[in-house]
């Protein structure tokens, strides 16, 4: 079942104009379990659980797609650039290997 995950989209710098190239940072709270670790209490192997597909969309149109494996750190952080074409909405869709789907969006508000 899809559960609400804590995630965050950040624009760097915070204030920008149309035509600027900004960083779009995406952080999500996720265990990124490799499937090889043992639970110290029970001795059972923890099943793999990691994000495997991420799509960055601008007004519903994908501009960056990623395929990710369990070798990415816990609570992963991804950063890409974006040349701001104008006002819009950034959406990040992500799924993990167990089929859990989540989405997060933030409005893109350039100054000029």
């Amino acid at each position, binding site marked *: 079942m899809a559960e609400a995950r804590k995630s965050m989209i950040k624009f760097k710098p915070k204030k920008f104009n149309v035509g600027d*190239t900004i*960083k779009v940072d995406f952080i999500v709270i996720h265990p990124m379990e*490799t*499937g*090889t*670790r043992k639970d110290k209490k029970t001795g059972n192997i923890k099943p*793999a659980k990691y994000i495997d597909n991420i799509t960055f969309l*601008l007004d519903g149109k*994908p*501009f*960056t*797609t*990623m*395929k*990710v*494996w*369990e*070798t*990415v*750190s*816990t609570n*992963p*952080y*991804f*950063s*890409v*650039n*974006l*040349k701001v*074409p104008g006002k819009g909405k950034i959406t990040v869709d992500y799924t993990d*290997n167990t089929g859990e789907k989540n989405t997060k969006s933030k409005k893109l508000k350039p100054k000029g």
Partner: protein
Amino acid sequence: MERRNFIKSICAASAVAATITPSALLAKEAPKGGNILSYDAAVAAITGGKTVTDSSKVALTVPEIAENGAVVPVKVNVESPMTDADHVKAIHVLSTKNGNARCADVMLTPLNGKGYFATRIKLAGTQDVVALVELSNGSFLRAAKPVKVTIGGCG
């Protein structure tokens, strides 16, 4: 007739066994759907046998010594005009000695404005981090840097 039928049934049974065993073996070899690839296999899968050239256009930023292998920041910057005709198509982040060599495949478009990607990865031990960059003309560039890991992060 009975003997003939008996032999036939044995043949059929062995044929069934022969078809079942390979698939059972495969399932054992790849418990996670064939996701795990060694470094060489991963490079071959990405490039498809094309030549990869080391280039100074790819700037890979990693720490020289990582105290904690569970969190190693990786930054890739590629010099590119990022126009429709000439842009960075993909950035692949790989490690040479992790159980699974692949960390992230990032497909970029001209909308990105710059060939840039940053993330944090796990490293099982001291090894090289490799950035494989695919350009829109189909050529591959590569940059690699060693990272010393004091505590491994793929426990």
